[in-house]
């Protein structure tokens, strides 16, 4: 049985973990109402760590994309029985040195995986693994338009959690284009069916694009066959580091360009921006996106531990927003 490595950062290439002979598993944390985090602590970071530890993996990979996640792990280091790797993803991206730093962090991760019992991947093995994941991602993305956003999100979740296996049924439920068109953008989602996408659809919204953290937005770019053949490692760096638009990058130009493209392409009537309560990176985006997009934006505060009352509140706010747009 392969050793399982849990992670949540889109900049951690699962192909790299798999090429080392380990099973990558990107998970979404479960809602927890048993242990509320202390004031100021992001409930997502809290829940992710709790969920990951409860699953007793062989290792956990975290990243510096989020300061709360970095510091929470840091504060727990002496108490964790499971090996943890902190991946330093550079925030800047304009220089070759930042790119080299990302490459060197991937190499360091490789050494960590080898210490866990993984093997050093040959060029051929890495190349095949990258191609396999790319192929499966393409298959998955082809099913995007045939599914509702929430169902597609579930497919993605299953794909990532299982270490790249395509779900048996790629079309879960035919999407019928009705309701008020909305774009969703924001941070990570929680596990389970009642996430913000599902609730938006139940409230009468038709999600025309999903830009949350666990969506198509953070999938790596498509492979360039020639480059893959020449240097699979370099191509891996390219499809992740050079192309994923994200909120923590400085400057965050690519994220806004991505959103602009989505708005032009899908013409939503409004945006839903979902973020966890203490997520400064996303909360600071609300007024800025409102400024340039000209679209009404509903900001939804998520909490992983606030129970049914909070869900009702979110539903009511979404319904009111949709009524306004209708």
């Amino acid at each position, binding site marked *: 049985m392969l050793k399982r490595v849990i992670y949540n950062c889109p900049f951690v290439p699962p192909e790299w973990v798999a090429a080392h002979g380990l099973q990558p598993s990107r998970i979404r944390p479960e809602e927890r109402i048993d242990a509320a*985090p*202390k*004031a*100021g*602590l*992001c409930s997502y970071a809290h829940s992710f760590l709790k969920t990951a530890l409860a699953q007793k993996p062989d290792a956990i990979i975290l990243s*510096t994309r*989020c*300061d*709360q996640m*970095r*510091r*929470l792990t*840091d*504060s727990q*280091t*002496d108490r964790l029985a499971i090996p943890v790797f*902190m991946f*330093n993803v*550079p*925030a*800047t991206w*304009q*220089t070759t*040195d*930042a790119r*080299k*730093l990302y490459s*060197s962090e991937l190499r*360091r991760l490789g*050494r960590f995986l080898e210490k866990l019992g993984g093997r050093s991947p040959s060029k051929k093995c890495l190349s095949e693994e990258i191609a396999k994941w790319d192929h499966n991602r393409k298959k998955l993305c082809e099913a995007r338009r045939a599914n509702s956003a929430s169902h597609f999100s579930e497919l993605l979740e299953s794909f990532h959690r299982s270490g790249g296996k395509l779900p048996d049924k790629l079309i879960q439920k035919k999407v019928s284009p009705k309701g008020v068109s909305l774009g969703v953008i924001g941070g990570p989602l929680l596990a389970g069916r009642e996430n913000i996408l599902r609730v938006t659809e139940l409230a009468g919204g038709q999600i025309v694009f999903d830009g949350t953290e666990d969506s198509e937005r953070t999938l790596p770019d498509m492979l360039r066959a020639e480059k893959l053949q020449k240097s699979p490692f370099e191509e891996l760096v390219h499809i992740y580091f050079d192309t994923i638009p994200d909120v*923590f990058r*400085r*400057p*965050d130009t690519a994220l806004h360009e991505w959103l602009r493209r989505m708005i032009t392409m899908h013409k939503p009537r409004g945006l839903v921006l979902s973020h966890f309560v*203490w*997520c*400064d*990176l996303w*909360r*600071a985006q*609300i*007024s*800025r996106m*409102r*400024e340039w997009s000209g679209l009404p934006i509903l900001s939804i505060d998520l909490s992983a531990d606030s129970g049914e009352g909070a869900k009702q509140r979110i539903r009511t706010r979404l319904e009111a927003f949709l009524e306004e747009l209708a």
Partner: protein
Amino acid sequence: MKSLPKKLSLSGWGTEYRKLRRDGLREASYGGPLQRHLSENPSLKRFVFDNSAASLRLWNLLLSEEDRLHEARKKGTLIVACMKDLGTIPVMAFSMPRSLAFYPDGAWWLPCLMGRKTQVLEAADKLGIDESFCPVRAMLGAFELQKNFPMPDIITCSSGAVCDDFSAIAQRLESRGHRILWWEMPLRRKPEKGEKSLPLPGGLRAPSAQLEFVKKELERIRRAFSELRGHPLSDAMISRGIRAANKVRKTLSELRQIVFSAKECPLPALEMLIAEMLIIHFCSDLGEAGAVLNELLGEAKKRVRSSQCVLRGGEAKIFWVNPVSDIKVMNLLEDCGGRLCGTENMFCHALEIIPEDMPPIDALARSALADPMTGSSAERAEKICRDAAGFGAEALIIARIPGASHCATEGGVIRRKVETSLGIPAIELEVPPVSDGDENSLRTRISALVETVERKRQ
């Protein structure tokens, strides 16, 4: 006859100033009575001050910064805004001719000094950066209003291993048309087994590869500065800048040593906090910052020599962690029977001497990598324990900065380490930008800590 050390209200400073003048007070160009700052900073009335001429000069340097920056702008001095980085880029900026560094993040003191006269927080609110963010959001408001400092020629900001709130606020600033030169500060990690590593100031070590990376980032900044100034920023110039900065750092280090380890307190906590803050960017004037600290050092030495104390005597010795956005809390500490006995205000690397026996960019990179906020909280806690033990601290206060991403977890790590290693009590306090509304609860908590210390002494 010179006055004995004491604390004064702002109105009390009027008489004291006249007395000092009669006694032959010689002042710097930015000197004058403290009350002249009242119209711009009405909240000065909230504070009590040390009565020395040295402290007056310190306050005058701090409160004249805006005027001095405008004056520098008129003279064509290159103004470099150094954001987030606490102490490294300013050394490079001051190494250039006709250039100065200033620290926009320092705007977080505007609400506690100016009260309602400043609208910086309201301006930040309007940009969606509300009170749930770190009070450093005042900086965004200050840029938006363009009233508190001239717009800089270049803005640098470190990113990477920095707090999310600052990074988000700085990004919001850039979205308002202020171009930022972002540079990457990697998360400082422990070297792996067999990995080449190098020593950093403060007794730390970092992998050589990380140091090489930071050197390249600083080279990038050097190129930008050189282009802007139209003159290469040479190694020789930076080396001179490092020597000048080290001179000031040495003075501050001696001042801290004398004040924090004195049997009775020679200088108040409020003035010590401001003196320490000068080291980040030298309050936009490296030469004057050095002169001010020298004078304070002279005053502290004189008071210690003659066994003079600015407080009543016998106060609980408190080590303070994290800077406060309302400096009045330093007065409150002393009102409650405490005295400052060591600090770690998130920039202890800026208090360390920058190596002078290596290429200057290498030296600055080592200094930058020693930033306590780029490493683990456990490493920071170890340093705090060493310093607190060295100064003989009897208790520790961790000031939580509202909304700051590092404050949710680091306090627990530091407290646990201090309690287990030193066996002294520690508390966490949250200090808002204007703390008047919270004064009673802050007073109760600090007083309880002081009482705990007093009980332990018995």
